[in-house]
């Protein structure tokens, strides 16, 4: 589903480099995320997806490079930007001993959501988890807690949404639901979504634009269809495996461009 008209850039990374003990987890990584776009970051374990996301959230400071959201420099406008953004990951959790509604209410208040109770009810319904309202958060199944986390991430109707492996550890049915929800969010909120995943189905179904990361570098980017064609592979999974194993992929278009002049 390629986005037809390029719209406003809401998140931009310019030559982002992040070193850990001399090893580059991100290497001159650049990205532009448009409003209404779902951009997928794909790559093997350790490729740098989470690091990229953490830099964009200001959790990790980049070694060098620039980060801008809504046209403003990230570090100096962090709070202002975070008000319009949100984040959810399979690796964070809401406090386990609180009830679902308590957790959501706390974050609704932090984000200053108008009519928090109504908003929470609306989101629980959208995720089909209204019945979990009074449950203890720590006792939820992976699929349930992923959806509660997503509720938290949508409380403030974010214009920028970062999702780090939202479908990790979900069964195919729930993963499918989550994908539908992500698409619905995109069209309802017209937000930009940055999405990381190992799951090819995720990426094919949800993302308009893909960036393949390998050792912190973008090795290929384009629409999912485009990428499959250009790398003369039959599926995205093929491309993924080639990149993960060899770190390189023969990009037919790039080759032609090289030859052209």
């Amino acid at each position, binding site marked *: 589903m390629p986005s037809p008209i390029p719209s406003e850039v809401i998140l931009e990374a310019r030559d982002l480099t*992040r070193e*850990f003990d001399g090893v580059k*987890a991100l290497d001159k990584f650049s990205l532009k995320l448009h409003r209404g776009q779902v951009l997928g970051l794909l790559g093997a374990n350790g490729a740098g997806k*989470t*690091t990229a996301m*953490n830099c964009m*959230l*200001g*959790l*990790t*400071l980049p070694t060098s490079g620039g980060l801008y959201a809504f046209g403003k420099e990230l570090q100096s406008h962090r*709070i*202002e930007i*975070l*008000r319009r*953004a*949100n*984040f959810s*990951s399979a*690796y*964070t*959790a*809401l*406090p*386990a*001993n*609180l*009830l679902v509604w*308590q957790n959501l*209410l*706390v*974050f609704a*208040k*932090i*984000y*200053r959501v108008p009519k928090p109770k109504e908003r929470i009810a609306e989101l629980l319904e959208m995720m089909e988890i209204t019945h979990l309202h009074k449950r203890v958060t720590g006792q939820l199944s992976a699929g349930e807690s992923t959806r509660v986390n997503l509720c*938290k991430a949508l409380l403030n109707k974010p214009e920028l949404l970062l999702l780090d492996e939202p479908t990790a550890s979900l069964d195919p049915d729930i993963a499918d639901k989550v994908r539908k929800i992500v698409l619905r969010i995109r069209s309802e909120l017209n937000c930009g979504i940055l999405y990381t995943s190992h799951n090819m189905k995720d990426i094919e179904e949800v993302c308009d634009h893909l960036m393949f990361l390998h050792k912190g570098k973008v090795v290929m980017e384009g629409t999912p269809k485009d990428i499959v064609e250009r790398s003369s592979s039959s599926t995205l999974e093929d491309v993924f495996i080639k990149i993960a194993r060899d770190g390189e992929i023969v990009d037919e278009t790039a080759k032609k461009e090289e030859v052209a002049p």
Partner: protein
Amino acid sequence: MSLHVIQALVLRYLFLYTRSPMRLIELIFWPVVELVIWGYLTLFIQENTTGDFPRIIVFLLGAMILWDVIFRAQQGVAISFLEDVWTRNLLNVFVAPVRTVEYLAATFCVGFLRILVTVTVLGLVAGLMYAFNIFTLGWALLPFFMNLMVSGWALGMISTALILRWGQAAESLAWAVPFFIQPFIAVFYPVSAIKPEWVQTISWALPPTHVFEGMREVLKTGVFAWDKFFWAAGLNIIFLTAAGMVFFYMLTLTRRRGLLTKFATQ
């Protein structure tokens, strides 16, 4: 600073305490146990010693309650942070529009609430069991408490900074840090009892020392020592500022090293 963020964070801790009675019990159980044990011991010594010993029980009980003010305030800050680490909630908070000062202010409030609970219970127990009236300290109580609370906050920020620096393995520092300074701040004995004498200089440089000395003075003479109050308050301003700077520095360092997220997802 925005009030609604602080309120929301405090609400989270209130939910946490109402949801887990063990936390409330912990707030009350140990201080009461200590008070009871040391109270009986002092009574026993008092009865079996000849000489002028009448005030020792009053000093000791007063000291125990005041010490708990420091400890609870420090715990409010340090444990609140750890709660976020334990519950893997730290990332959610740090990606929310929460300023560091707002986060700290919320933990300060939690410290204050913990003090209220503990001191009320200890005051009641001391009154019932040993006929110790905490209000013998009179209105001097308030400036004492304020000063000790601020010292506790400062120690809490230091504890958290150390945990940030050394990771979750250093978690027990959240309980240990106040005891690093306890020998020096003359909680249960006067500064003059501290030997060798040069160590007393260290004692006087720590704000709580002035409070505990002041407490003994009030109990003994009934006169509030203003000089001690001002010393404590002045030193506290310096301590709180320094501790805040150490905390901010560690937080930035943690971000720069990319360790904040490691904390949050362990």
